């Protein structure tokens, strides 16, 4: 199985082969190394990679893995290959997403409105900082996901535009 994993905003290609008793792992174009995870209770585990073994604390939610190790806490995200390919090959997506968690202050567009790239669509507030959400490209608003006053998390879909139009 091969997937890209996002760690500190960099995507790494990671491949795991083998079966539960014996697995190998390769990062990017590196060498395959034997790999195993010995899970203990309470989210603690020992990760064995080649000659190394390190105790880590881990928790998983969906495709996101949270790890405390090396005196730091990391958030690693396993990237969906279809979404990844779509993003890489077709430019800006259909949905404007929240750059940070916050609250909707003002909405400038309604469903059905035509917007041009860079046009202001929504104002959000986070930590008393106002941020304007602009249209990622030209299109038509098909969905406004929140009402003024509503709170949302990071990466939440705020406004969805119509599907990419045919050139």
């Amino acid at each position, binding site marked *: *199985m091969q*997937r890209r*994993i996002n*760690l*500190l905003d960099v995507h*790494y290609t*990671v491949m*795991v*082969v*083998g*079966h*539960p008793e014996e*697995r190998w*792992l390769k*990062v990017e174009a*590196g060498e395959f*190394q034997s*790999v*195993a*995870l010995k899970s203990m209770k*309470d*989210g603690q*585990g020992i*990760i064995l*990679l080649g000659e*190394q073994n*390190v105790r*880590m*604390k*881990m*928790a*998983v*939610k969906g*495709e996101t*893995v*949270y*790890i*405390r*190790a*090396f*005196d*730091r*806490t*990391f*958030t*690693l995200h*396993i990237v969906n290959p279809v979404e990844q390919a779509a993003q890489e090959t077709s430019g800006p997506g259909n949905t404007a997403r929240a750059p*940070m*968690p*916050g*609250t909707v202050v003002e909405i400038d567009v309604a469903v059905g409105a035509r917007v041009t790239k860079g046009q202001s669509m929504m104002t959000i507030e*986070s*930590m*008393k900082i106002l941020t304007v959400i602009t249209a990622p490209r030209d299109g038509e608003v098909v969905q406004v996901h929140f009402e003024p*006053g509503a*709170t*949302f*998390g*990071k990466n939440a879909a705020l406004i969805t535009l119509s599907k990419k139009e045919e050139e």
Partner: protein
Amino acid sequence: MSEVTKVLIANRGEIACRILRTLDRMAIPGVVVYHSVDADSPAVKTAAESVEIDGPTPVAAYLNVESIIAACKETGSDAVHPGFGFLAENPGFAQRLAEEGITFIGPQPSTIELMGNKVAARSFCMDNCFSLVSSVTEADAGEDFAECARKIGVPILIKAAVGGGGKGMHIVRELDGLDQAIQLAKGEALRSFGNNEVYAERYVEEPRHIEVQVMADHHGNVVHLGERECSIQRRFQKIIEESPAPNLTLELRQRICNTAVEIARKANYLNAGTVEFILAPDGKFYFLEMNTRLQVEHPVTEMVTGLDLVELQLRVARDEYLPLSQDEIKAKGHAIELRLYAEDPENDFLPATGTLLAYRLPAGKGVRIENGFAEGMQVSSAFDPMLAKLIVHGRDRNQAIERALKALDDTLILGVTTNIDYLARILSHPAYTSGQIHTGFIPKYGEDLSPPPLSEEQRNLLLAAAALNSREFTDPAFQVPEPYASLGDWRN
């Protein structure tokens, strides 16, 4: 004589839990109010009685005076503890409670009003000859405000007249930026506090933030419980507090504390309060403001004095005499409080949200936890992003730092980005351990405080852990069958 037989806590999270604990010990029934997003919170689960309140947003629910008064009546509560934040410094709320014959556990509405407006508080201090940083207010200067502010000379600090928490604060180092800073501060003040009044003061470079806990009863007794050092701040908000303040002469310490007591006395202060000072590198100190409530960092004082501030608040509210005289109050050892925030120190401390997948807080000798969350709970952007407070006590500052580091290491919060590792890096920084601290500590040592780079081995270990923890990689449904797996990428 005021009755305090049943106390409603008009707050949430860790402070609600903390107040409940003292009420329980004193055998006073406690009631919490809660918005539905907090229905599963430890405060609601611990409280014997709870009342759901509502509002257009979760925060608005906790600010709704009338529904809280209704909850008091419904539960027969004859006193309200406001905690901090929300309605704690709202004179209108204290007034409404008084009208309803409900005891507000805190100072008089008039004191709240006086100290709540920084401009009014400053003139009060000026009138009473307490030292202040040179300043100018919009109220005094009117049209000439910007001109007068210019005369103070750079650096200048522009602040909102009401409110707190660092919102609406701007430092001006070049006079060219003054007008813009005033406009920004007014805008933020209006949005945050509904009042666009601002004032300007001389900004003291590398100042320390020292505050003094005071306590006053109905019988004219005012005592201080020592000082707290709160200089480690980000975005003008405290993240590490300690007591006693390091590297302070006994003489200076006493002068500061006595000044605080004098201010409280002059203000006819009642109940718990905190007088905040700016301490300049030359040893001069200036009145900053007075907080008319229990402070977030009050446990630091409790750890060194062995007193329960909430208990003292309740006793004072019941018109009792303060149980200790100034001479009987002794500080022992050193305490440090670390505020655990759901925020991303590597991304300008922006608040973080998510689910607490793992939430394990430390315990042990000299460790105290104030916590309002539990594993599995959502951290939303609806409230302040503080998760918990970790307070340690040691026989001296070094031992306290050591215990704090150990406690942080024993803390595990996964699922939401937190400042735990960042706090540990501050505590390990030589400038911190030697007590060379001031409110500009974080910007000054920003680079030292950023995380060390990852080695390739560490990176690969993390990726391996993520891969083996993920269903994507380990699901047998996608395992390559034999003989294909052993053939690698062979092509005929």
